[in-house]
């Protein structure tokens, strides 16, 4: 007896069609920690950007009478620093430089290191060996010492510090993007793309980049938290921003003497660095979890 099937089509799948990044954003929005970090970072960034508009005082004008005045002094909401300047104003203005010195090197390192890593991962062979072994050489130096050495050699000043930090951050990004590219490159769909006659650039642009962005971005975010600290650190030892520019690391240094008399005020720039760094770190964790679900 033959089985005669009725003419009915495939049962339609009734899922919603969301893109990958849309899904990531949705999951991120549901994570309270990530939302909190995003809000904090946005607030700090905005207050840094709009510092001239919202700061109550002039960051470079110090009143001798108000030196190291405690929190809550009239006019100086968060107290006065060792030269009598308003802490609140200097923290707001300091954010500008600290954030720039933290974020810009990561962005630059991502562009340069990412390109190098993808090239090494995709091409393989001799090119990969050159790129990766050069990267290894840089890895031989502890990052902080390397930053100090380069900044020291170039001298202080914003441009030099940015350069020093970028150079230090390129190797880890090369490694992460190379390893991600190598993994993706061996997947069947890349082979299928090659089998359709596509050249390397098309394959990288369409197939590789979209699939490595996830892990690379997560890593870049975690590097942001490190970069902020290193930038502040360089300023702390005098290789970053120059006084009297307000910058959190620099402020930590200049307030060192006040640590026994006004510990809260002396700690404040450190607290700011801590909050920003931690927020970037937690955000990178949140991003990673959001990307984990298939």
């Amino acid at each position: 007896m033959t089985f005669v099937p009725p003419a009915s089509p495939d049962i339609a799948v009734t899922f919603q069609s969301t893109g990958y990044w849309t899904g990531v954003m949705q999951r991120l929005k549901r994570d309270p920690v990530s939302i909190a970090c995003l809000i904090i970072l946005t607030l700090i960034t905005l207050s840094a950007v709009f510092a001239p508009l919202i700061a109550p005082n002039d960051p470079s004008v110090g009143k001798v009478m108000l030196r190291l005045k405690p929190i809550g002094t009239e006019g100086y909401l968060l107290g006065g620093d060792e030269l009598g300047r308003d802490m609140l104003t200097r923290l707001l203005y300091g954010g500008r430089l600290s954030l720039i010195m933290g974020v810009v090197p990561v962005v630059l390192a991502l562009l340069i290191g990412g390109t190098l890593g993808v090239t090494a991962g995709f091409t393989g062979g001799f090119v990969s060996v050159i790129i990766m072994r050069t990267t290894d050489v840089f890895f031989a130096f502890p990052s902080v010492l390397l930053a100090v050495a380069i900044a020291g050699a170039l001298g202080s000043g914003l441009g030099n510090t940015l350069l020093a930090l970028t150079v230090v951050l390129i190797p880890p990004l090369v490694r992460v993007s190379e390893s991600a590219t190598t993994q993706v490159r061996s997947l069947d769909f890349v082979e299928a793309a090659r089998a359709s006659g596509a050249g390397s650039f098309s394959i990288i642009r369409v197939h590789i980049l979209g699939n490595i962005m996830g892990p690379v971005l997560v890593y870049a975010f975690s590097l942001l938290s490190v970069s902020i600290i290193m930038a502040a650190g360089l300023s702390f030892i005098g290789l970053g921003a120059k006084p009297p520019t307000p910058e959190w690391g620099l402020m930590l240094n200049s307030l060192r003497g006040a640590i026994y008399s006004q510990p809260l005020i002396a700690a404040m720039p450190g607290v700011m660095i801590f909050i920003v760094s931690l927020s970037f770190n937690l955000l990178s964790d949140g991003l990673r979890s959001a990307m984990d679900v298939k």
Partner: protein
Amino acid sequence: MSSKEAVDSVLVVNDLSVEFAGARGTVKALDGVGFSLEKGQVLGVIGESGSGKSVTMRAILRILPTKTTKISGQITVDGEDVLAMNEKQLARYRGRVASMIFQEPALSLDPVFTIGHQIAEAVMRHTGASRENARRRALEMLEKVKIPSAESRLRNYPHEMSGGMLQRAMIALALSCDPKVLLADEPTTALDATVQIQIILLLRQLQLEMQMATVFVTHDVGVAAEIADQIAVMYGGRIVEYGAVRDVLMNPQHPYTKGLLASTIHGSMAGTRINTIPGMPPDLNNMPDGCAFAPRCGHAHADCHAVSPKLKPLGNGRQVACVLDHPSLVVQP
């Protein structure tokens, strides 16, 4: 099921239902599955994706994730109530009373220990044997599964062995403590043809020799024909047909079984179009009301979409979950 059958049966599953809590709500993976097996009997379970065949086995061994799974019903192995066991009892039960072999041997063997070590360790833990005796038993098991140069294989690591060897090693490990029930989850699916037939013959021989009640899950009808005494065809979390292997394969009653067998490709069908079952296996997140197979069934009518048919006994141990009231579905003894 008579009480005499219940007494002789080593494995009794009764009205087993399993629900998973998923991101999109609860999924009923098994719905009222029941069967019994005597000593030395082999049950071949045939089914496709989502049929629940693997879930059944994992429920019997209690290796489903505990937090998100809800199991109801009864599973009795060698007289013991498996669903009521606590962790300590389960540790004694798994490997000693009931044992499982998997599709991917490389995944179930620890890559950092030698084969000999892993088998000996299992024996020591379950039987309390000394290291000496456990080693001897490991060698004995490797010889039993016909691994060539068994003595030197004891010192091999999993990555040093080929697919067929690993499968034999996994079988040796699973059988090392003389289990009463053997659960085989597609153990030959990933093997080459010439190795597959060797493993099937080996399992058949060992099962007979050790008189184990065996549940053998497969999607390949030919493999089931080679090893099973009874066949259960599963679809959408339920058993839809049950009976002796000869009866079910030569004389299928359920429309799904018929469709499956008719669409099984034999070379002799060359040149003709394959009679396929239209549509796709059901989405467990979205089960239709009534009979799970009705959307794809050529004989379905209104009642089929409303009420899910229970397993109906047809005599001689045959059961079919279908209303069977279409004129072409005449019951043949």
